[in-house]
């Protein structure tokens, strides 16, 4: 008789050569809070985007009330009762609360009636058990209040499926509790709530059923009572570790290169302490929102630390700018190749020498093209960069080769500490192994590497030690010998805390 309010049937989605989802099936029933868990990059975002009509499935179909539908975009998804709220709320900072809630309402007439708007806004806000002045301008609201506005907006449109994507990631404990209460309340009213979260403990508190996805595929869907955290974690990470991730022996020397004590950046992270030795690879593991990148940004001087001490070769230093970091011998290979790392339209050789322009390659202020070519050729051989010639724009290279060009740029600054942020995200397996070899080669020659990675096999393969973070806090440091995927995941999800 009854059909699920929204269902994905054997949905696959590919972006170019990358397969984000394959054969995904999910049924959402009225009145349930349905948690979806998976590692970073498991395909959760793609799944949401298909349910909200942002992406169309490559194959397979979406059903509403048992009937196949084609969602042409967020507007049509909303019309069918499917709304989503995100970790970063989608509000209009210049409009007030009431206007934000009713921005896409169609039943309120042409002329805006302030009084009516205000009154209906109050009703909706009261329905989710919050209190908010409808006249307040949205730019002054806290994140939790902005989310409340978004939920009220969804309610104003008779929401039937509400997708909450990491809604509590940036909230305080109290606010997160409120949000879970709201989710439960909406389910009690008959809404199907999709709840995506990395905080396993809150999933056990809020969800009726839980679906685990991994590598774009559906792994399991079970009532929450039949699941244990251990089992969930095992299913989340349970892929086979490829044998190309081979950990070689540690090259760590006793000499401490960088030492960090109680490092913190206001509103990002606090109390991070570690040492990196010459010849060592320290991995920073954690889930999205663990603020690992913020640690890297502060060590590279982009967002200077506001608390704690940094010692470089035993000397206390203050790293106030990237220039200061580079002067010490620290380089940062950023995650966002396109935005922060490479000048895509420029040639390979221009990119390689970008960070060292003033140093070696100029004579009387003029570029020495021949020297630049020689330098680029050296890296091409050393890093095995596959390119037609040094004048090719970097944007034309594959992801793996772009990564190598970026690496060449930083190696050219002759760094002693290289910070890698997700060095192998989005590049193919072969290139991945090459990047790993380059990192190992770098530390063998006396450098040190700090590697941020969400890829657990990579963390286990590379790290001499693994520092796990969660929501801006250091959860523990695991030596390589004692590290397992499950152990790292337990720390990262807050199921466990190291004595450290």
């Amino acid at each position, binding site marked *: 008789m009854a059909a699920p309010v929204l269902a994905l049937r054997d949905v696959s989605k590919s972006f170019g050569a990358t397969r984000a989802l394959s054969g995904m099936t999910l049924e959402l029933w009225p009145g349930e809070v349905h948690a979806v868990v998976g590692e970073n990059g498991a395909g959760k975002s793609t799944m949401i985007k298909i349910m909200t009509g942002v992406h169309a499935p490559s194959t397979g179909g979406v059903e509403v009330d048992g009937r196949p539908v084609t969602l042409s975009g967020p507007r049509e998804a909303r019309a069918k009762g499917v709304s989503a709220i995100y970790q970063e709320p989608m509000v209009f900072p210049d409009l007030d609360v009431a206007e934000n809630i009713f921005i896409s309402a169609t039943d309120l*007439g042409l002329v805006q009636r302030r009084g009516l708007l205000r009154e209906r806004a109050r009703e909706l806000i009261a329905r989710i058990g919050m209190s908010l002045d409808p006249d307040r301008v949205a730019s002054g609201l806290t994140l939790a209040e902005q989310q409340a506005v978004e939920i009220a907006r969804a309610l104003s449109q008779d929401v039937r499926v509400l997708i909450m994507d990491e809604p509590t990631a940036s909230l305080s404990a109290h606010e997160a509790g409120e949000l879970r209460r709201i989710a439960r309340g909406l389910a009690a009213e008959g809404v199907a709530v999709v709840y995506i979260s990395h905080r396993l403990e809150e999933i056990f508190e809020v969800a009726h059923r839980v679906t685990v996805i991994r590598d774009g595929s559906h792994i399991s869907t079970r009532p929450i009572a039949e699941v244990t955290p251990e089992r969930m974690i095992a299913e989340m990470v349970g892929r086979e570790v490829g044998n190309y991730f081979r950990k070689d022996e540690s090259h760590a020397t006793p000499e401490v290169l960088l030492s960090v004590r109680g490092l913190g950046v206001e509103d990002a992270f606090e109390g991070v302490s570690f040492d990196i030795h010459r010849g060592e690879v320290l991995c920073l593991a954690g889930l999205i929102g663990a603020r690992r990148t913020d640690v890297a940004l502060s060590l590279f001087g982009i967002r200077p630390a506001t608390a704690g001490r940094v010692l470089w070769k035993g000397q206390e230093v203050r790293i106030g700018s990237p220039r200061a970091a580079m002067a010490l011998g620290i380089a940062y290979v950023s995650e966002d190749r396109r935005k922060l790392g490479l000048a895509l339209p420029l040639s390979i050789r221009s990119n390689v020498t970008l960070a060292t322009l003033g140093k070696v390659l100029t004579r009387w202020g003029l570029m020495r093209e021949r020297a630049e070519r020689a330098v680029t050729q050296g890296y091409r051989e050393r890093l095995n960069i596959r390119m037609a010639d040094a004048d090719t724009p970097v944007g034309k290279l594959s992801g793996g080769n772009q990564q190598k060009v970026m690496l060449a740029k930083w190696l050219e600054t002759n760094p002693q500490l290289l910070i890698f942020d997700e060095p192998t995200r989005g590049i193919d397996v072969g290139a991945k192994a090459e990047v790993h070899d380059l990192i190992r080669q770098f530390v063998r020659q006396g450098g040190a590497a700090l590697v941020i990675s969400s890829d657990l096999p990579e963390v286990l393969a590379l790290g001499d030690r693994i520092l796990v973070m969660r929501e801006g806090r250091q959860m523990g440091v695991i030596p390589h010998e004692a590290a397992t995927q499950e152990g790292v995941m337990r720390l990262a999800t807050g199921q466990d805390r190291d004595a450290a």
Partner: protein
Amino acid sequence: MTRVSPGALRLLALVLVLLLVGAFFASQIENYLNARLFNRISSSVAIVALIACAQTLVILTRNIDLSLGAVVGFTAYGTGALVTAVPDLHPALLALAALGIGAGFGLVNGLLVAYAGVPSIIVTLATMAIFRSALVEFSDAQSITTDSLPDWLVAFPNLQLFAIGGVQFRAAFVAAVVIVIFVHLALTRLRPARALYAVGSNPEAAEMAGIDVRRTVLAAFVAAGALAGLAGLFFLARFGNITVVAGLGFELKSIAAAVLGGVNIFGGAGTVVGALIGAILVDLIENSLVRWDLVSEFWREAVLGLLILSAVTGDALLMRRLQRLRIRRDKAAAPVPKEATP
């Protein structure tokens, strides 16, 4: 508790600046503050207010329209040619023609920006030149002269509707103010007009909220074009003699007026009433500089540029400070600690 909204505060500050500027020039120029000053400025404000209003609509959506001056010039010439050819044309039809010509140019800009996805600064920089050249081609470099225009049109700008003392309220000025108030009411009271603010405030969220972002941007350009067309007709009525350089530099003036009037250059915030006061300020300064011996005429444009710079810089600094204040206040208001890990 009464709260003065930041917008109202800004308008108040603007009026204060207006008074200060007036007082400054009164101290510098003999026989400055009189009815003639108002009459003169009001005639020119009638035109600038319309294009400032037009520019505001576009800026609200995070775009900019550099072609407005060229549209004013073309419409001034076009309607002049039309009324020369058909002297008995009904005034309403002439106004409609002005709106239509302007809207047509706006449509070209809007389609290119919204649907072809070309940044508005590039599109309108190009169309500014193209529209201007089209005018040269269309006019055959001939001028429209006052003699060829019907009397009612020439009389319109100076037509006195009512007067308070020596201060005359002339038809063009009153019409412009009425239009601005009308647009203001539409922007604040009509629900579809909120889309303009929404799109400029957070385009991504607007898309997610089911707002047709592209159509909204297109509508803004078309409306702006129509308003600039009307400004062109006013221009024709005021000056009578129209050459190919008509309306040159109005794009700068319109941006200056809007920005001075508190319209956020990054979109999403601002009012056309603010732009109107900005327009008055721009014209007051321009008209006064003419009479101020200390500043040579070559420096007048620079003064305008300086004004834009100081308005935007001041705004940016103020906003940053407000934001910091708010963050501090939020922290004080939310004593709940970040989640304590077990």
